[in-house]
């Protein structure tokens, strides 16, 4: 090949995963070069890591990492089936059977080959290996003529091969020389558990077995005879007893070779001959061969950098692995065998659930050295980040592997240093992701495309998403927060617009700031904003179509289409007369009654047309709506407090009632719950509420943003020993600030977790008025309080509004599909099977 003098001739021997990565990076580097690729295989590079997917249906084209058209477009001179036979270093020539090629720079990316132990009989037809697509085709063919299969080697690859044989329907055995499976990555305890799990899946494991000879079998094709005299019969044998570097080209050319093989390289991936590089599994760096793809990719990048005259050293690589073998999760990190002097271990072994976890820390318990996980690798990402970034351990390191005790310190993406590697396949650090976002990437997809993160083994997907989400969050990126297809605004922006432009209807808002007809997402959200800002009667005709059915009918819809009725019982205090009224109403309308978790009484099973009558009775007796249906203040729970309790230090009931009356009717992004306890014993569970108040000798301690529910959160102590007026003032400000700034359906707990600056910031806004908005927040709260009305009372006073509470516009009949049966002396909805057939719904047919 001729070339003009300024352009270097690069010849790459081997087009495996690493060789291809080198080519791709060299092209992308812009370095002018004539590239020749000599591939020993009949095809260009493919994904060896996911080779096993062949057995679940992947074909060569699914596994391909590139195609010939791409190589042509890149201007690469590639030759398939071109096995290089020798290197002439003085003339700078490599030779295949057909031809010689000149190089200025030679890159050896010849990978490795499966090691087949020199056992007599191991060269028979159904004795195979597992490395290339051709190997897979041979395995498939052999399996089709076999009933029993043996994998020799119980390492990572061996177990993957065993899985493949099992999937092919063979009775499968694994024969391992060592005493346990995956001896490189796992300790004994983990190895034992893994064995149990794999045997439970029907694969028989034989450890400490050295095969001596493979002879003809009696039941099966072959018989493997072991050193201890025992034997095993099988129709086919798959060797997976380790790999050996393909280093013979280097060896013959006189390059430095390691004692146990491998072409010696320096930090730039150069061999003894500066014109020759070696990368991937054929290369030996500081006496190590890396049998994983990620380190090979790093070497490829280092070699490209060196050729382009840039500084980028290969500095070793992490060999941690996480994988799923036959559905069994296995993870191994760092010094899994605790070989570091002084290393100490924490072990958690849950036999019934088949989970084993070991954490290895240094002598001072200050950092993670390694870890082993079997049966549950959910802690893998966190432990790996601790290990790779030398992050300081928590006081009690064992919490990192113990089952969630509530104490497990969550490793937020925020806690990771900028240098933390997120994707090791493509060497993407957290800082690269940050850069990509700053450079304009606006979605996870774009970031993946631009950094290639997560496009290798896929092991980093969850972590990448975490980091990306947290970075977007930090920038206040609104992409994901836009309400819906009808509004290109966040809830916070709409709130602002409604207020500033004094908008009082959905139609006006969508006309000015949105498009289309709205939907079940934006309508209730805007309905809630209008209510928060103006506190107009939620059932003003223009507001009706905005509400969820619960708000429209002022009750919670139950599974059968009936509604529940929850009168307000402030602070949980109720008179006997009140109890009697509720009892009478329930009896009269045959409603199911239950004490709720919110210290009040819920009446279930009211038909829509019954609601006005039922509420008429309740309202006449002095009850108000409890807003159980609304994103609004729900309950203020209380304990009995100093009035009766021998420990109480303040009147918690009185305080709870006062607060409930003050904030009832306040509509918010989500529901709001309070509780007031009379002393630190905390019988009202105030620390699990959005607003929690605990009495002290000197006043009230205020807790904020607690939550029960799906993801419990303890409230944060906001201020201590407050007088009642200050307490109320702070609550006014906190709640209005929440109403103004939270996302749709965001509880205070989530709002706080996402509030930049967190508790300290909220304190500075509310206590120190750093934003100068406190008088506005208070005025707004006062306006809402002044505009309070019992929605049921107002509804009952309007014949027009009452008219809507009917099942049918044209008939007084009942919905016959609503049926009840008796249970424990009360009603409950009938199941579909229990419903009387003649009343069950009948399809279109007119009488």
């Amino acid at each position, binding site marked *: 090949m001729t070339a003009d003098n300024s352009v270097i001739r690069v010849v790459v021997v081997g087009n495996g995963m690493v060789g291809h990565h080198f080519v791709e990076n060299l092209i992308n580097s812009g370095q002018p070069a004539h590239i020749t690729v000599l591939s020993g295989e009949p095809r260009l590079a493919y994904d060896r890591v996911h080779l096993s997917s062949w057995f679940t249906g992947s074909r060569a084209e699914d596994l391909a990492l590139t195609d010939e058209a791409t190589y042509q477009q890149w201007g690469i001179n590639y030759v398939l089936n071109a096995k290089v036979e020798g290197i002439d270093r003085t003339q700078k020539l490599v030779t295949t059977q057909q031809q010689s090629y000149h190089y200025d720079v030679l890159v050896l990316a010849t990978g490795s080959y499966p090691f087949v132990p020199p056992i007599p009989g191991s060269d028979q037809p159904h004795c195979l290996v597992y490395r290339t697509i051709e190997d897979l085709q041979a395995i498939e063919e052999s399996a089709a003529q076999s009933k029993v299969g043996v994998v020799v080697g119980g390492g990572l690859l061996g177990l993957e091969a065993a899985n493949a044989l099992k999937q092919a329907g063979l009775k499968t055995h694994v024969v391992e020389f060592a005493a346990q499976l995956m001896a490189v990555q796992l300790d004994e305890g983990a190895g034992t558990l893994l064995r149990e799990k794999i045997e439970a899946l029907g694969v028989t494991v034989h450890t400490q077995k050295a095969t001596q000879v493979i002879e003809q079998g009696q039941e099966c094709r072959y018989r493997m005879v072991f050193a201890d005299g025992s034997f095993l019969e099988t129709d086919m044998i798959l060797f997976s007893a380790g790999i050996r570097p393909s280093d013979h080209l280097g060896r013959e050319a006189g390059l430095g070779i390691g004692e146990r093989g491998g072409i010696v390289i320096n930090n730039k991936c150069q061999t003894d001959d500066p014109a020759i590089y070696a990368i991937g599994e054929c290369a030996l760096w500081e006496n190590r061969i890396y049998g994983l793809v990620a380190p090979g990719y790093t070497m490829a990048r280092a070699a490209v950098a060196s050729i382009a005259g840039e500084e980028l050293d290969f500095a070793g690589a992490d060999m941690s692995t996480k994988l799923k073998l036959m559905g069994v999760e296995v993870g191994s990190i760092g010094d899994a065998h605790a070989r570091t002097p002084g290393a100490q271990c924490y072990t958690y072994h849950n036999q019934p659930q088949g989970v084993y976890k070991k954490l290895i820390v240094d002598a001072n318990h200050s950092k993670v050295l390694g870890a082993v996980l079997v049966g549950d690798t959910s802690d893998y990402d966190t432990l790996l980040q601790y290990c790779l970034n030398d992050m300081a351990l928590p006081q009690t390191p064992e919490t990192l592997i113990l089952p969630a005790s509530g104490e497990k310190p969550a490793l937020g993406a925020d806690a990771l240093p900028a240098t933390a590697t997120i994707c090791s396949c493509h060497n993407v650090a957290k800082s690269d992701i940050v850069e990509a976002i700053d450079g304009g990437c606006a979605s996870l997809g774009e970031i993946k495309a631009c950094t290639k993160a997560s496009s290798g083994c896929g092991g980093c997907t969850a972590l990448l998403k975490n980091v990306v989400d947290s970075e977007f969050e930090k920038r206040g990126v609104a992409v994901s927060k836009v309400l819906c297809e009808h509004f290109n605004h966040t809830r916070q922006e709409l709130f602002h617009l409604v207020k500033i432009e004094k908008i009082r209807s959905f139609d006006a808002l969508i006309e000015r700031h949105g498009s289309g*007809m709205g939907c079940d997402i934006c309508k209730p959200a805007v309905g809630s904003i209008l209510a928060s800002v103006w506190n107009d009667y939620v059932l003003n*005709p223009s507001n009706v*179509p905005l509400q969820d*059915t619960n708000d429209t009918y002022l009750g919670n819809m139950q599974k059968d289409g009936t509604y529940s009725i929850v009168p307000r019982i402030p602070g949980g205090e109720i008179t006997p007369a009140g109890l009697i009224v509720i009892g009478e109403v329930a009896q009269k309308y045959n409603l199911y009654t239950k004490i709720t978790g919110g210290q009040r009484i819920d009446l279930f099973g009211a038909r829509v047309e019954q609601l006005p009558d039922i509420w008429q009775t309740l309202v006449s007796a002095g009850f108000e709506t409890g807003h159980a249906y609304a994103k609004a203040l729900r309950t203020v729970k209380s304990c009995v407090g100093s009035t009766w309790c021998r420990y109480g230090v303040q009147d918690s009931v009185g305080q709870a009632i006062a607060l409930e009356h003050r904030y009832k009717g306040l509509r918010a992004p989500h529901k709001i719950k309070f509780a007031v306890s009379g002393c630190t014993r905390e019988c009202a569970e105030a620390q699990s509420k959005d607003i929690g108040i605990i009495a002290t000798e000197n006043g009230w301690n205020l807790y904020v943003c607690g939550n029960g529910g799906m993801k419990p959160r303890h409230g944060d102590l906001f201020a201590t020993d407050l007088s009642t007026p200050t307490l109320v003032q702070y609550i006014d400000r906190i709640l209005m600030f929440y109403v103004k700034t939270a996302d749709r359906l965001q509880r205070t707990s989530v709002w706080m977790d996402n509030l930049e600056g967190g508790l300290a910031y909220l304190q500075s806004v509310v206590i120190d008025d750093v934003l100068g908005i406190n008088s506005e927040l208070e005025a707004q709260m006062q306006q809402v309080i002044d505009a309070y009305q019992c929605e049921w009372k107002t509804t009952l006073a309007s014949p027009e509004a009452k008219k809507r509470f009917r099942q049918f*516009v044209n008939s007084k009949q009942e919905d016959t599909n*609503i049926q009840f049966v008796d249970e424990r002396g009360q009603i409950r909805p009938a199941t579909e099977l229990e419903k009387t057939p003649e009343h069950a*719904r009948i399809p279109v047919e*007119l009488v």
Partner: protein
Amino acid sequence: MQAKAQQLPIWYDICDEQDLISNSGVCALLGQQQVAIFTLDWQGHRQLYALSNYDPVGKANVIYRGIMGSVNGQPVVASPLYKEHYCLASGQCLENDALSLPTFEVELKAGKVRIAL
């Protein structure tokens, strides 16, 4: 059945136009059939839709109490129970191809709402 197939649809008077609720639903009973009637008022036009009131997912007669809206410009109603969206014109469920609500012809005539069966 055959005789019926040859008949022209029969129109039934349901209620007065004033009984409708703008951008929301009401329900009519015709024999055993519950029909949800939705009134879409948008950009000065009024369009009525009629669909079966039975929610096949929640298995309750509640469709008329759903929120109306649009998905990609197509008018829909969201079931109040589990929030599936149904196209008001065709009855097709947007989340599940296999589900659709029967639809009915509906019209306004001389201040009366009428449905054909």
